[in-house]
């Protein structure tokens, strides 16, 4: 993949090294010439000094051939503007932008720009680790707002139906493994102690799911 990264800070440089290591063609752009020093000696990608908001800089960096554009500067406005230019003027198929201040999320949403929320991701992860250690996610979506978690069905839930654990908008039972066989359960499928369930759950509802599984469930 040909990827263009705007912002050669800690994240941008680490991403550049990683993607180059995975065989991608990487171009990094930064306003600051000295930012090139964050890339390791012998970095096989390209570093370009310039403002990624400038059309000419993007063109000279080869944006016409880019399959992905990632805006990772420390400035939310610059990330928004560059991401929109990449997507709407240069039609780059995959555009991502970092969001520093969650209060700016509205501006990104207004333009439909997919965001990497450093703050939100960190907050979700810390709460996950501190409050919900027993529910280690198999997969997280977006910036950690939605998770896929698996858990054994506790004895006390035996005989309940899978659908009784569903909470619209918060928790959904999406898979059931029983004696090595996996199925997508119906809401009416009875649970057995020892079953392992996969739940899709909103980050804010992990506490609720945990209390179901810990036996604090009342219906």
């Amino acid at each position, binding site marked *: 993949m040909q990827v263009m990264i705007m912002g050669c800070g800690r994240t941008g440089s680490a991403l550049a090294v990683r993607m180059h290591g995975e065989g991608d063609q990487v171009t990094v752009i930064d306003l600051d010439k000295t930012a090139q020093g964050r890339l390791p000696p012998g970095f096989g990608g390209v570093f370009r000094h310039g*403002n990624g*908001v*400038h*059309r*000419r800089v993007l063109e000279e960096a080869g944006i016409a051939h880019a399959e992905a554009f990632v805006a990772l500067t420390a*400035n*939310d*406005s*610059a990330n*928004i*503007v560059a991401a929109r*230019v990449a997507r*709407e003027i240069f039609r780059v198929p995959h555009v991502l932008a970092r969001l520093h*201040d969650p*209060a*700016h999320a*509205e*501006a990104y949403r*207004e*333009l439909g720009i997919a965001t990497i929320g450093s703050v939100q991701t960190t907050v979700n992860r810390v709460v996950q680790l501190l409050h919900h250690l027993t529910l280690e996610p198999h997969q997280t979506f977006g910036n950690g707002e939605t998770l896929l978690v698996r858990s054994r069905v506790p004895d006390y839930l035996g005989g309940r139906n899978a659908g009784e654990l569903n909470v619209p908008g918060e928790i959904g039972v999406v898979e059931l493994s029983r004696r090595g066989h996996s199925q997508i359960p119906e809401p009416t499928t009875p649970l057995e102690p020892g079953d392992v369930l996969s739940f899709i759950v909103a980050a804010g509802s992990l506490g609720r799911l945990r209390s179901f599984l810990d036996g604090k469930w009342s219906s």
Partner: protein
Amino acid sequence: MKVIVVGGAGLPEQVAAVLRDAGDQVTVIDSGLGREQALADAGLHYVVGDPLVPATLEAAGALKADVLLAVSQSDEDNLVISLLGKRRCGVPKVIARVNDPATEALFDATWGVDAVVSPATALVEMIRVPVADPTVS
């Protein structure tokens, strides 16, 4: 007219004062740069907040404003403020300042900008226009 000015010290506040003196209802958005005392001293109405957040624009009266001036020293901020002012608050006339001529091409209706103020471009245009020779009639 109801006018909202975003941009900080210097030109933005001077424009705000001139408009206020001309009888317009002017609100300045101070993005926490420590201008509160200066704004109060100048007798300018202001709200404190991040202009990149729609709630701040709304608190400044953007939903009922006639004009929004996005005239800060950051072109990227001016574009995003213009966009939010136009799309989220429906401000009829959005005027944005271009600081860096290389970004001027972006300042158009796709960002909610109705009119552009570009000091550099204005100066260059002025330089290109010949001065009228008073000896020629």
